[in-house]
């Protein structure tokens, strides 16, 4: 029981680490700035005063998914597979 708890905890921490890794890589490769520029267009279109989180999410998320560079995607998938292999005991 105890070991199971430790495993679950390790998985949680690993998930969190993967999140941070992805964010760092995306900032590094300019993905953030690209998307921010797209955000500016959305804001100018909807108006600074009236733009909502929903507006941004609907416009930005699909583009964001597409804009992730292949190298980043590959590396992240590699790490995820390794992580899953590690914990498939």
């Amino acid at each position, binding site marked *: 029981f105890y070991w199971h708890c430790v495993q*679950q*905890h390790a998985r949680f921490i690993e998930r969190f680490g993967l999140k941070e890794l*992805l964010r760092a890589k995306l900032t590094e490769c300019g993905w953030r700035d690209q998307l921010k520029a797209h955000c500016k267009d959305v804001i100018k279109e909807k108006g600074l005063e009236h733009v909502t*989180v929903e507006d941004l999410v609907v416009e*930005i998320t699909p583009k964001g*998914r597409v804009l992730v560079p292949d190298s980043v995607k590959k590396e992240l998938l590699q790490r*995820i597979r390794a992580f*899953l292999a590690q914990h*498939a005991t």
Partner: protein
Amino acid sequence: MKMEDMSLSGLDNTKLEALAQDIYSDLVEDACLGLCFEVHRAVKQGYFFLDDTDQESMKDFEIVDQPGVDIFGQVYNQWKNKECVCPNCNRSIAASRFAPHLEKCLGMGRNSSRIANRRIASSNNMNNKSESDQEDNDDVNDNDWSYGSEKKKRKSDKVFLHSLKQHIPLVSFIAVEIHVLYVVFLSTCNCKGANR
């Protein structure tokens, strides 16, 4: 996304690959949402378009690097040697000594309560030695003692709150850990019911 609470060993490769893709798209979506929230907040707080200011206006906000002047270009030791008049005792005090003088003059601040308590303690000792008028003196001293101990309690409360505030990052981390353990506990309860 909920924590996976089933064992991974039973899954074959295609399912593991699908799981990996799921986790990946989950992570990307998380990053996108994070960006949306940040941008939305920047828009609502009014700092989103700050880096779009033209070169001319940017020069107004450049960091100043001259001697005798702070980074905003203001002179900072202009009033160091001016003299102020204390509103309590009407004495003329130098500006750099004004704050400590005011502490003692008004009877507030950390040191003045310590000095006052010491004076009370020494005068209490002197009064206990004299035999006449002992009751009257004791009453007067009782009031002073209770006031002093109230001050001490307030002071220690302030110190406690301040040290607690410094530990807020630690406290939130502990809260996350407790939440994790709670989730783990729930999932293991489910596991125990199903597999084990």
